């Protein structure tokens, strides 16, 4: 290689990822709680929203709001354009093939229930099985229990190891000709484990088994690509990816969605209604009965605009460094035991402290300005697996910093002191 060539192709500059600059975009982060600067570490429950989302929601509501579809007036057309524009943004963001594959729902929970009702239940028979894992959120357990109870089918559960990683060989054994669906979490909310979902999808597809991925906790931490993952369904919520609450997405492969019966009946999901017969609308309207959360959809679109311009390589590297640092600092405290130490993890620190209940930790941390979650995180089977009643969970986002981790550690040491 010549010097000229080197000059012609300079090394890319080190990533300019600057969490401090990003923090300026999130107004809620800049406040005092009980006399301390807020340290917000409850992102896995719901993340904060950037000004871009807050402002777009206000702008839309002030100027463009009306009911969508079929309105001939200007406002309805503007609202329809914004709402359907959000669908296009989502399609592009998750690299789905077709905008018809993007179904607006209330959130991940409704997305899973939709698949349970319209895809699985009609063909679920006595002795059939639904495969899932020990690390599922209740929202990816209960809908399947309900469907199975009604149809005489069985929920089969793949175990996890002591680090909180899925035991793939055991999962593979569960995949049989009786398995109607494999449904699992992409990233565990309680443990932070990142499952090797692409490999798992391929494993299931080899056996002709469709796969639903619960992506609620994955999508705030990484880019996801539907065509690359090749999953049949993918569910996620707006409010965990810096958008508003009350809206989420079910991605589904078009040929599957087309073959499915509607989820709910009502307005917007029909083409012709008479008392003798109703003809359903095509995708995606078939699954979107009733007036949707219009402003929510527009807000999610704004969140995606924000995430599209994020330096994702920088964000992922930053979160990995926070995870490494947080794990190291927590490990220095002898009373602390981390729950969830998978090799591939998102920036979630779930832990128990000898002699101090998570609820008490949560209260004392709050008085130090540190917001964490204490409880079972809607994943009681995970708590049972690790024989703990509950954990304290600090869940980070790209806007968190090492100072946030330091504040957590300081407050935690104070808490332990109280109970000494």
């Amino acid at each position, binding site marked *: 290689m010549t010097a000229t060539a080197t000059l012609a192709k300079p090394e890319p500059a080190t990533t300019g990822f600057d969490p401090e600059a990003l923090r300026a975009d999130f107004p809620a982060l800049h406040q005092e709680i009980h006399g301390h600067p807020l340290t917000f570490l409850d992102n896995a429950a719901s993340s904060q929203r950037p000004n871009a989302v807050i402002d777009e929601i206000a702008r839309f509501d002030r100027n463009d709001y009306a009911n969508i579809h079929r309105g001939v007036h200007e406002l309805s057309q503007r609202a329809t354009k914004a709402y359907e524009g959000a669908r296009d943004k989502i399609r592009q963001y998750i690299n789905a093939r077709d905008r018809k594959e993007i179904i607006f729902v209330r959130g991940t929970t409704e997305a899973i229930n939709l698949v349970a009702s319209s895809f699985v239940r009609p063909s679920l028979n006595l002795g059939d099985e639904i495969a899932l894992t020990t690390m599922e959120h209740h929202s990816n357990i209960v809908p399947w229990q309900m469907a199975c109870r009604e149809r005489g089918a069985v929920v089969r559960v793949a175990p996890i190891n002591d680090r909180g990683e899925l035991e793939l060989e055991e999962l593979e054994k569960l995949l049989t000709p009786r398995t109607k669906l494999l449904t699992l979490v992409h990233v565990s909310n309680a443990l932070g484990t990142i499952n090797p979902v692409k490999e798992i999808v391929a494993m299931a597809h080899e056996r002709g088994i469709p796969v639903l991925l619960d992506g609620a906790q994955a999508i705030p931490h990484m880019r996801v690509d539907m065509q690359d993952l090749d999953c049949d369904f993918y569910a996620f919520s707006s409010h965990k990816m810096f958008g508003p609450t009350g809206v989420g997405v079910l991605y589904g492969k078009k040929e599957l969605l087309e073959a499915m019966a509607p989820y709910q009946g009502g307005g917007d999901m029909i083409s012709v209604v008479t008392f003798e017969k109703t003809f359903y609308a095509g995708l995606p309207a078939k699954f979107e009965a009733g007036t949707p959360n219009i402003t929510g959809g527009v807000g999610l679109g704004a969140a995606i605009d924000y995430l599209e311009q994020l330096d994702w390589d920088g964000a992922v590297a930053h979160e990995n460094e926070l995870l490494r640092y947080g794990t190291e600092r927590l490990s220095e405290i002898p009373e602390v035991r981390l729950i969830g130490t998978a090799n591939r993890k998102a920036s979630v620190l779930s832990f128990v402290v000898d002699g101090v209940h998570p609820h008490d930790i949560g209260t004392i941390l709050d008085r130090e300005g540190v917001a964490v979650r204490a409880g079972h995180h809607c994943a*009681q089977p995970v708590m049972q697996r690790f024989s703990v009643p509950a954990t304290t969970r600090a869940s980070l986002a790209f806007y968190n910093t090492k100072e946030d981790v330091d504040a957590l550690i300081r407050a935690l040491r104070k808490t332990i002191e109280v109970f000494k």
Partner: protein
Amino acid sequence: MNEELRDLYQEVIIEHSKRPRNFHALAAPARSADGYNPLCGDTVKVYVEMDDDHKVADVSFEGSGCAISTASASVMTEIMKGKSADEAEALFNSFHELVTRGEASDDEIDALGKLAVFGGVSEFPTRVKCATLCWHTLRAAIAGEDAPITTE
């Protein structure tokens, strides 16, 4: 630690949470009831044995919970022995006022005795259920109710 926290986690509460009194099961003919807080997964089972005069002959508890819920159950079982069902009900009402409103009359404070250490809970609305779960469960045990008590 700030003042409100010190009020919440008084020495007595920390001490009872670490070494709960009457922390065991009671054999039949004692009655029991189960309490459950679905928000945090805390569980408590309260046992009570009533004598012929319908007074609490013995009372105990088992379960797992935070410092507030464990200490609350521990102090409750200490104070409840020898109380009639009516007295238990009156104490429950005074205790409930104390932890929800932070207020109690002088007479109530007298009657509450050691239970008065839970006055700091009123500054922490999210923790009221921790303090009252065992009391709801005790009421159910005295009344002989079968369905588990939940805070939600």
